[in-house]
């Protein structure tokens, strides 16, 4: 089948089940974070999911920062 479309492929094809396992919501020092697994016990912060504006000012958990979870 050939699909002629301008839509990105990830909108058309279903994601691999393993993709779902990559991301998770964790509680890091009392702040809920959406993280992505990188390696070992290291995770990369994707989104800060707190409602406290102060948490967004915390440079240690900004998006892109790598954190270590035990």
């Amino acid at each position, binding site marked *: 089948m050939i699909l002629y479309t301008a839509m990105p492929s990830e909108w058309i094809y279903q*994601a691999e089940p393993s993709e779902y396992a990559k991301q998770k919501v964790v509680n890091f020092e009392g702040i*809920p974070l959406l993280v992505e697994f990188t390696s070992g016990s290291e995770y990369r912060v994707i989104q800060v999911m707190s409602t406290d*504006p*102060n948490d967004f000012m915390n440079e240690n958990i900004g*998006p*892109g920062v790598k954190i270590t979870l035990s």
Partner: protein
Amino acid sequence: MDFEMNGNDQEQQPKEDKQSPLMEKIQQLGQTNVPQLSQDSKIHCLTIVGQIEGHLQLPPQNKTTKYEHLIPQIVAIEQNPKIEGLLVILNTVGGDVEAGLALAEMLASLSKPTVSIVLGGGHSIGVPIAVSCDYAYIAESATMTIHPIRLTGLVIGVPQTFEYLDKMQERVINFVTKHSQITEEKFKDLMFAKGNLTRDIGTNVIGADAVEFGLINEVGGIGPALKKLEELIENNEQQEGLVQ
């Protein structure tokens, strides 16, 4: 420190183990420093972004608002005496009706002052969430698409399905008309309007139009919204003072 931004050089250079903290910060946040807030903000900020995720988990590349995650946060905001007001920022394409209505009901029943701002877009099920707050703002360039409820994919055309969808739609219409100035007739008119959306029925209301229809209270951004929230908090405190 020298900052030669030579693309070729950077790619060829082996990754250094120890990057300068400044470089690291630029890579992480895209900026060098972040403004500091004074401790203990009494206003919390809830962001409704991307798709509103319902019973089905969306693939990770989607930006989603997870209602099972937001609801405990709203509970915590209600319970925490230090938090005096909530600012809701919307930029959503919509999503699950039940999850969206759940969030809207939670926000509407919050005893603390709430102000919402629609930035960019507050489409479909974002409409009830925007109107659920005590006062709603919309940015001048922001839009809200009002359209009938539908299922994505194949719709089985049997009367039961139709009735189920119709009842679901009633719930949305009731909520919106109850929490904003818009009349049921007007809202339904916008919902079933023809010719506004390509090959679809519904209306895309922009900034000032949303205010004109009575859906949103005022056109404005973060400044007026925070001012309004402070005002509501002050009123709230005065009322509490009278009760005690």
